[in-house]
């Protein structure tokens, strides 16, 4: 097990290097002279030149990447252009806010999704199944930014149950977390339903029923426990989905997370901040998937550490 984890960590290194390369290339793709773009069209020529040297843009591109990589490894993501603060100091608190939001959403989506999926599987091909899966499909098809607006309209403006537009305490987290969770609920519900249907056909379920086990026990003790394994594997995928989706949700609910920071940095042409934010997203996504993989091998003893 330890060997497996170490090997997985080593295998991460090339991926992480690749991720830094992609984030580095974002700045290279900026059309024209990045120093000029960052400094603004009417900046003095000397100021642009100074910025170019400060950002290391006067060096050959390969060398620039090596410097960038070296800096990232030592935790130096550069300085924000608009605030002059270290990127890491800007990104970190926002990142924590996004993680907070994503974690609550993952919990919501797992509970609701597994519940809906199990119910749909038990009542396969009945009206209950059709309605549940219909709602689930609506969840996948609804744009989060629109759902967010409707939820604000109903629960904040009309009913006044939750605050919106302020990030204070747990109650301000509820609405954005639900909005963000909606598509993820759909994913876990579909996954749970299909793996539950598969499990319910297995021989050990027949055995459990044959020996006179109560149906509720068959479902919860025998079937669900096994059906949950595939659902857990998609938590990693979902986390990435939630992180990506959080961009829109954070903007709508003015939640001070990383997604909103990236969007405002794009408008402000604060490229180091965009780069740092994107890197943080990708790193955390990779890390979560690694954790899920390890958890998976732990949960399902049939899987060998290969």
């Amino acid at each position: 097990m330890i060997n497996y984890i170490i090997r997985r960590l080593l295998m991460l290194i090339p991926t992480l290097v690749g991720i830094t390369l992609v984030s580095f290339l974002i700045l290279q793709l900026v059309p024209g002279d990045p120093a000029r773009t960052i400094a603004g069209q009417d900046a003095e020529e000397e100021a642009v030149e100074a910025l170019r040297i400060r950002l290391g843009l006067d060096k050959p591109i390969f060398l620039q990447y090596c410097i960038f990589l070296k800096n990232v490894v030592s935790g130096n993501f550069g300085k924000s252009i608009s605030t002059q603060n270290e990127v890491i100091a800007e990104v970190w608190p926002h990142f924590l806010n996004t993680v907070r939001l994503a974690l609550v959403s993952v919990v919501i989506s797992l509970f609701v999704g597994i519940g809906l999926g199990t119910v749909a599987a038990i009542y396969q091909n009945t009206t209950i199944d059709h309605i549940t899966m219909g709602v689930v499909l609506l969840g996948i098809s609804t744009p989060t930014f629109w759902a967010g607006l409707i939820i604000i309209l109903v629960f904040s403006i009309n009913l006044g149950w939750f605050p919106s537009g302020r990030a204070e305490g747990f109650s301000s987290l509820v609405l954005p977390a639900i909005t963000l969770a909606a598509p993820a609920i759909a994913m876990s519900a579909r996954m749970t339903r299909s793996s539950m249907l598969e499990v319910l056909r297995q021989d050990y379920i027949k055995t459990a029923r044959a020996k006179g086990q109560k149906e509720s026990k068959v479902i919860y003790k025998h079937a669900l426990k096994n059906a949950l394994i595939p659902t857990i594997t998609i938590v990693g995928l979902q986390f990435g989905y939630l992180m990506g989706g959080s961009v829109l949700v954070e903007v709508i609910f003015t939640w001070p997370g990383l997604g909103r920071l990236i969007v405002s940095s794009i408008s402000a042409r604060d490229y180091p901040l965009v780069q740092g934010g994107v890197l943080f997203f990708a790193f955390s996504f990779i890390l979560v998937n690694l954790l899920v993989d390890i958890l998976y091998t732990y949960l399902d003893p049939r899987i060998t550490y290969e």
Partner: protein
Amino acid sequence: MNEKNDAKDKGTGNQVASIWRLFRRNKLALLGMTLILVIVLAAIFAPYIAPYDPSQQDFQMLRKPMSAKHWFGSDQMGRDIFSRILLGAPITLRITVFAVTIGFFVGTLIGLIGGYYGGMVDMVVVYLTDILLAFPGFLLALAVIAAIGPGITSVIIASGFSSIPQFIRIIRGSVLVEKEKDYVLAARAIGESNTSIAIRYIFLNCIAPIIIFVTLRMAVVVLIASGLSFLGLGAQPPSPEWGAMLSEGKGYLQTAPHISIFPGLAIMILTLGFNLLGDGLRDALDPRMKI
């Protein structure tokens, strides 16, 4: 057009017919196809059926709710929302089709090469795919926009680019399965070239999962593209693009929610259409495939 030719060939004709039979039984898939057809027709005939000029401002009609004259009400500049939604349909459809085409071509090419040749080539392909998949889809599109600047073309490139790794993975997976089959060996025995085997044999046999994935990816791209426009990074006002309309309307949520509700509904209906159709095609084309 292919169906006619297929019908002559009795074997394939039966196959197409049986797929159609399976598909037709699926009421939800038919509903999905209808939703898409309605929006496509609306997009084609929008200039002729729109009751108003989508940019015509009427200051007597600011933020008015639904009425007989303005079916979906009017927006903050007194423009007719129904007409704007009709004229927004071709924009969204164009973005979606172009973006998915980019993802399809680049992804298929890379996935086919990696899966078919294997070895070092495949390792590089897998490595590249893994890296790109490390960026959540919407974020990858956002990063591309950050680099190339906002606009409709950028949205096409960005959402197309973020579809590439997904296409590579789907196609590479199918190719790995197909290339072990006997017909590939037979093709090689009769002296077919690598290109011919890869395209005429393997690719054509992977077409079912590809069609399914293209349809489902359309749904995702509709959401990504309108999301980018909603953030002000895609189509710019006064364009009647649905995401941009939503973004313009969100300031009037309290007094005139209909300005935001209708464009959102339009996005949802189109996405739902693609999702329903994709699910239906999956059931009809490949009953074994899951999620």
